[in-house]
């Protein structure tokens, strides 16, 4: 199924991003995407005035795995150790609507035709919502990169945008993937050790405490928000069943449509609140990663100090040790400096994004409550209608 999102929809869809894609020198968007079975093919469209690109306006097809490759390539670049790398977009997950579609197919025999059609419509809307969501997160990822002063100039990024053939040759082979998995495991072990290192800088000390705490809380909130919106969807589905039964008894057909709105409340709520939380959960993880790298650099620096002291004692390889120590110090300072910058701007960004999304969510809730009021009244009138007339 091909989905083309027009501009107004994209505006709305871009729910968690703030102030991205403003720099006219490099504008990126995903104007459409194709969904084949499990794979989603995104069309990445770039408009640029920069001379580093071969053409001013071009598009390339990309798959989810290409985005992951780009993300990992950035993470592994030493030079960016002091930056918060935007979190990789999550894999497109059509599991939930697909499962529901399956169940619907199985239960088809027990439902009336109208009910089945309506459930199918609901399901299709859900599918579309998942689809839109995944396009949006992929788009935001690219836009974060393009609006970052340093990352936007990355060579791999440019390749990603421009290379007009299949990127799979450049993608990780299986061995490398396994290697990175192992690296992640080591990292989390390191994390534990490093959080024990005494922090010299107040700013970073505070940030570390804050981020560790906030990260676990937001993970929790995200999970519960998801549960809540899922329950909401269940309630909406029930209303569909009920109105369908009533429909099959009375002769009013139009009234059934109204109940779709109840379903939409659920998906809009989800888009705003859950996605906001989920995005920032990932973002905070990225910030934590920065802290980790810096802490690692600090550990390295301290180790190098110790090594230097040892070398001085043994009067062996002193210059080497001194050089190494200098390197470590430099790295550490660089990380600290850029880290501070990144974390401060991150906080600002987060606050702005939360504000925008909370406002939009409240406005949507109000709007939908008003519509639901109508829908539910009409739903009840439908009942009234049914029960007040004898069987047709």
């Amino acid at each position, binding site marked *: 199924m091909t989905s083309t999102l027009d501009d107004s929809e994209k505006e709305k869809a871009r729910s968690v991003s703030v102030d991205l894609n403003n720099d006219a020198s490099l504008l990126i968007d995903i104007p459409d995407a194709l969904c084949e079975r499990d794979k989603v093919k995104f069309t990445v469209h770039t408009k640029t005035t920069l001379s580093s690109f071969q053409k001013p306006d071009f598009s390339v097809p990309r798959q989810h795995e290409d985005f992951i490759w780009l993300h990992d390539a950035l993470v592994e670049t030493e030079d960016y150790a002091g930056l918060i790398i935007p979190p990789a977009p999550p894999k497109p997950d059509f599991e939930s609507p697909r499962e529901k579609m399956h169940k619907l197919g199985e239960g088809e025999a027990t439902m009336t035709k109208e009910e089945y059609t309506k459930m199918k419509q609901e399901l299709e809307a859900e599918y579309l919502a998942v689809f839109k969501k995944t396009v949006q997160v992929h788009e935001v990822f690219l836009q974060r990169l393009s609006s970052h002063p340093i990352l936007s100039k990355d060579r791999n990024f440019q390749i990603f945008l421009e290379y007009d053939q299949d990127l799979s040759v450049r993608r990780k082979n299986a061995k490398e993937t396994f290697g990175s998995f192992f690296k992640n495991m080591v990292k989390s072990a390191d994390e534990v050790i490093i959080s024990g290192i005494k922090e010299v800088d107040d700013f970073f000390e505070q940030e570390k405490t804050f981020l560790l705490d906030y990260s676990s809380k937001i993970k929790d909130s995200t999970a519960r928000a998801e549960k809540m919106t899922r329950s909401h969807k269940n309630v909406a589905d029930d209303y569909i069943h009920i109105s369908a039964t009533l429909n099959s008894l009375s002769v009013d057909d139009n009234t059934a449509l109204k109940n779709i709105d109840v379903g939409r409340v659920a998906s809009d709520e989800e888009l705003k609140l859950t996605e906001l939380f989920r995005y920032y959960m990932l973002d905070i993880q990225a910030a934590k990663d920065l802290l980790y790298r810096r802490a690692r650099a600090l550990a390295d620096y301290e180790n190098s100090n110790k090594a230097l002291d040892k070398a001085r004692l043994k009067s062996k390889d002193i210059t080497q040790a001194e050089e190494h120590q200098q390197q470590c110090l430099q790295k550490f300072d660089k990380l600290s400096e850029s880290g501070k910058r990144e974390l401060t701007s991150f906080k600002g960004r987060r606050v702005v994004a*939360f*504000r925008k999304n909370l406002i939009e969510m409240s406005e949507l809730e109000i709007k939908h409550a008003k519509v639901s009021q109508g829908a539910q009244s009409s739903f009840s009138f439908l009942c*009234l209608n049914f029960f007040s007339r004898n069987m047709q």
Partner: protein
Amino acid sequence: MAAEMEPPPLGDAGQTDFREIEDGEGFFVSTVTILESPEPSSPDPPSMPAEGISTNGPKQEDISLDDDPEDLFAEATEEVSLDSPEREPILSDGPSPAITPVTPTAMLTPRMGLGTAEMFERSLDELEEDESGDTFDMHIAVSDPEKVGDGMNAYMGYKVTTKTSMTIFSKNETTVRRRFSDFLGLHSKLASRYLHIGYIVPPAPEKSIVGMTKVKVGKEDLSSAEFVEKRRSALERYLMRTVKHPILLKDPDVMMFLESSELPRAVSTQALSGAGILRMVNKAADAVNKMTIKMNESDAWFEEKHQQFENLDLQLRKLHASVECLVCHRKELSVNTASFAKSAAMLGNSEDHTALSRALSQLAEVEEKIDQLHQDQAYADFYLFSELLGDYVRLITAVKGVFDHRMKTWSKWQDTQLLLQKKREAESKLQFANKPDKLQQAQDEIKELEGKVQQGEKDFELISKTIRKEVSRFEKERVKDFKVVIIKYLESLVQTQQQLIKYWEAFLPEAKAIA
């Protein structure tokens, strides 16, 4: 089919109404007519376009079969309106006319059963005139469930309060204590007396071994409290339904139930008693018989009605199942909202940006309030909607039972006729056989059988007539019942939405204040 409308005069000076005048957004235009006054004429038909209204087929309520002069529903018409923006100002003007003098929140308190009965009464007082001319003015309340005794012999005692001004009762207000098996005993007496002659006897609430065992064992948890409340409410509805039936009301057992302080223990209602087993055997026998009787239906009305009730039964069961699902999911939603609220509060606490922190805490509070709303709504879903549907599913079983009795009566009549025929044939044979005493015996038998056949025919005609009356009464009641409940349910939904709007509108400035 003109759209008629009646301003609801009940209680209020008839100010509030559901009158909707609206335009073509492709919706049906509707009026909710709440029939109170006996004259069905409409004083001022609104300027409503009639388009789309008459697509729903013949409008008149199918009550015309009844000769009842107080045929209130003869010109009832309803259509459905979907005009949401228009609806708001009207509904927010204060809740439904007259049916609910109680405020909506009070409506949702655990004593709702009591409230419901009251509201029922107040509306029905002015609605229905008893066939005998005595205004139906009765109010029965079941309250104060108290556990009596201990262990497996414990039971719940309920207080039954009857308030009435009707002359057939000795006192204006009586209070007695009854237990569940008393209710079942009453039902079983009424059923054995009236069902087989065609009266629709309201079924008693169902036994529940699991529920009662929990109570007996003394589990003081939420589910057993809920169970007791559910049962109390069901018992109240049962009694009200029973006394609304003009014939049943005058039954001496009913009066004894309501008035006498001591009632002989109804042992035969126990599931495992001799009577219980006998009942089960009878039920099985009946089922078999039903399959074998092929009735020659001469009356199309019965054929049609029978089919209608079969359909209605199916649909109501389905609807009931869906609503129960809704109740369950809504409870789940409430739980999840509460847990999210807590989590958002914690998030707000750990947020270091002050304005955002405050906003998140506010969000948590809003969600908590919404959770409460969901709970209340679930409550309403259940007690208003789901239980009503359950009651009607059982009632329809009773109706079908009555139809079955008619079939049995017919069958008995036919069998007697066949037997008479056989005896006549035998007699004519005996005429030639020259056995005078056998002949006399045969002739006596024939006379007796002729009498029985006549009686059988009379019985059949009587039961048919009774059923017609009962069905029309049932349908009247059904419409009334559902209307009242649906309106209340509608209100609860609307109320919920309004609260939601309020909460979010209060939160919005907080979100905007994040700097």
